[in-house]
């Protein structure tokens, strides 16, 4: 899934006739002050970062007048909230809120239905609602073909105690939100709070929205707003990660390569297959190894893509070994990959007699792969050893090459 910034999701909500507070985006304290003036003085400032629970992280502030808005904006802009630098803030009119509701649409993976969680205890997170006010929470499962019936929307709010004009508005908004959730292929759509103002207006005061990456082909209009792949990491991409994304996208039709930097570590980790990489990472840790990155490739990538990937892995400071591993391949060509790997090792000026490199990679055309690795002086194994044995050998090889380097051991041990 790809997350959207709140400014983008609010704009889409407004386009779909769902009421939201008036707001502006500001990139400087001066701008924040100006926009606050336009909004009448009393405003909420929200850091525009693609993460949840910003309130708890101190990234939401209330300003009583434009000057104060400018000062608070200066405090928030340039800070880092849950690993994301704050470059822009949302300056929003402060609503006079009477009550807060909660609405969250998701896909229930177990029941395989759309689901909406609705509560009359908004303003706090869902874990807190379910712990403190379970009786004020309702879940509706929705058949995607039948949709959400009008009467169900009214029933759920009426059961939670809403009446009169507020009941009618909240029901109408719930129906519109469901259509919105479907229209944009959302994986998450959370409105918290759905505010009831003192003059009895129901307004989507805060929104969290994520769109299914796999559905982006039918939403070209969202291309700029959705941060595709933002679910994969807990922080923005590092420079090396961006470099590998470019390598991957340069040839979008053959193979996939995913690279995540880990904190510290000394073993470059290059693994073929999603499941194999999970297994191999655990195996290295269990023997006291410290992988410096998590890399998974597959889908029969080109030599060039494999080359770029290995260059990325070896470029991380502190990497002083490389393990290449994979499950016995069904269709990925071991010979093609072997050429890319060997070329990258050569171009990085690495001597495999001094810098530990170990390969366990069997499958399609592996007889040629074995020749390529062996000719380059690299320790190569096919299916004669298991992946677990390869992990053990790699960690032993690191210890032999760097004796006494205790920091390469056991911090993550099983």
């Amino acid at each position, binding site marked *: 899934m790809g997350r959207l910034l709140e400014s983008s999701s609010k704009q889409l909500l407004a386009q779909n006739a769902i009421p939201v507070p008036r707001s502006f985006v500001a990139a400087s304290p001066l701008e924040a002050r100006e926009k606050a003036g336009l909004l009448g003085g009393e405003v909420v400032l929200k850091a525009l970062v693609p993460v949840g629970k910003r309130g708890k992280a101190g990234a939401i502030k209330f300003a009583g007048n434009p000057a104060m808005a400018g000062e608070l904006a200066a405090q928030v802009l340039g800070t880092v909230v849950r690993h994301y630098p704050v470059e822009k803030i949302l300056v929003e009119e402060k609503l006079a809120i009477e009550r807060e509701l909660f609405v969250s649409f998701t*896909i229930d*993976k*177990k029941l*395989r*239905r*759309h689901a909406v969680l609705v509560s009359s205890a908004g303003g706090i997170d869902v*874990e807190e609602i379910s712990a403190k006010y379970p009786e004020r929470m309702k879940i509706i499962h929705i*058949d*995607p*073909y039948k949709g959400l019936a009008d009467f169900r929307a009214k029933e759920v709010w009426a059961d939670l105690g809403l009446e009169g004009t507020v009941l009618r508005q909240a029901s109408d908004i719930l129906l519109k939100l469901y259509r919105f959730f*479907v229209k944009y*292929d959302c*994986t998450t759509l959370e409105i918290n709070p759905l505010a009831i103002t003192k003059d009895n207006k129901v307004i989507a005061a805060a929104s969290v929205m994520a769109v*299914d*990456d*796999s*559905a982006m*082909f*039918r939403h070209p209009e969202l291309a700029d707003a959705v941060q595709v792949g933002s*679910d*994969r*990491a*807990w922080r923005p991409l590092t420079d090396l990660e961006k470099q590998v994304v470019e390598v991957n996208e340069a040839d979008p039709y053959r193979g996939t390569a995913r690279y*995540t930097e880990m904190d510290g570590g000394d073993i470059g980790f290059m693994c*073929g*297959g*999603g*499941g*194999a*990489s*999970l*297994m191999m*990472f*655990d*195996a290295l*840790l*269990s023997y006291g190894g410290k992988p410096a990155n*998590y890399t*998974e490739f*597959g889908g029969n990538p080109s030599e060039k893509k494999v080359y770029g990937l290995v260059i990325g892995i070896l470029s991380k400071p502190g990497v002083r070994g490389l393990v290449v591993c*994979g*499950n*016995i*391949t*069904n*269709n990925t060509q071991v010979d093609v990959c072997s050429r890319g790997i060997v070329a990258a090792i050569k171009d990085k000026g690495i001597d495999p007699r001094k810098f530990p490199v170990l390969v366990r990679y069997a*499958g*399609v055309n592996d007889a040629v792969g074995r020749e390529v690795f062996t000719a380059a002086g690299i320790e190569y194994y096919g*299916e004669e050893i*298991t*992946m*677990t*044995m390869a992990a053990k050998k790699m960690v032993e090889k690191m210890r032999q090459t760097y004796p006494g380097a205790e920091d390469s051991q056991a911090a*993550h041990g*099983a």
Partner: protein
Amino acid sequence: MGILIDRNSRIVIQGITGREASMVTRHMLAYGTPVVAGVTPGKKGEQVFGVPVYDTLKQACRAHELNTALIYVPPAFVLDAVLETLANGIKLMVIITENIPQHDAVKLLMEADNAGARVIGPNTVGVINPKERARLGAIGGDNVERCFVPGCVGVISRSGGMTAETSYMVKRAGLGVSTAIGIGGDSLIGSTPRDLLALFENDGETRAVVTFSEPGTSFEEDTAEFIMKGGFTKPLISYIAGKFTESMPEGTMFGHAGAIIEGGKGKPSNKARALREAGAHVVEQYDDIVSTLQSLRLG
């Protein structure tokens, strides 16, 4: 015997003229698998390695008796292909396609349930029954016997590559595979390990099952509950990959789309505990699959 497919399967491949689908057709035929027909709209009258191609599944069904569909169409068309399969009364389908929109997956899985049809996948490497020389999908590649030899052990894996590697571990133990199934790496898939264990329970050929699991979902907890209720009584050997993800920030995805811990759910440690309590052999190291299989003295 074995489950899902055998030499009497009557297979149609939807999207058969695509690059990967036609290569897989060749591999399937070479193995001896009964591929009867293919469908690609606009390509009626063509042949793919001797397999006749039709414009619609309805045409293919008029000309042949079909009971199994292998779906290779691009992501945007999978939902429609499934609806077409169901409309033509086919009750078993294997969806190979990766990156299907989740909202489409919800719909197609619901429609299949309503029709009483069985879905394997999406995003699967396929299914193989070595004794019957029947395979659906890329599973086994161009050298099937390297990993898949006939035998008495069922294999269920979240990962396509590890379906092969795990079957190879079975072979290292001196045994072979009754049926191996890649269930698919997405968070929304058709048949779960529990569903397949119910089939293995009733299969005379299968004497034990090995599963390869990943973080995310509640499949293993569901399996444990199924065992506790007596639904599966044969030995179950389970390896759960991705233990390290528990010490990473929640919501981070490694490997497959479905391999994600969310809201405290899907942790490998919880899965292992549930399966152990149900009496399964949960192995710490992947290699322990071999020694555990040998200790069961199945051969």
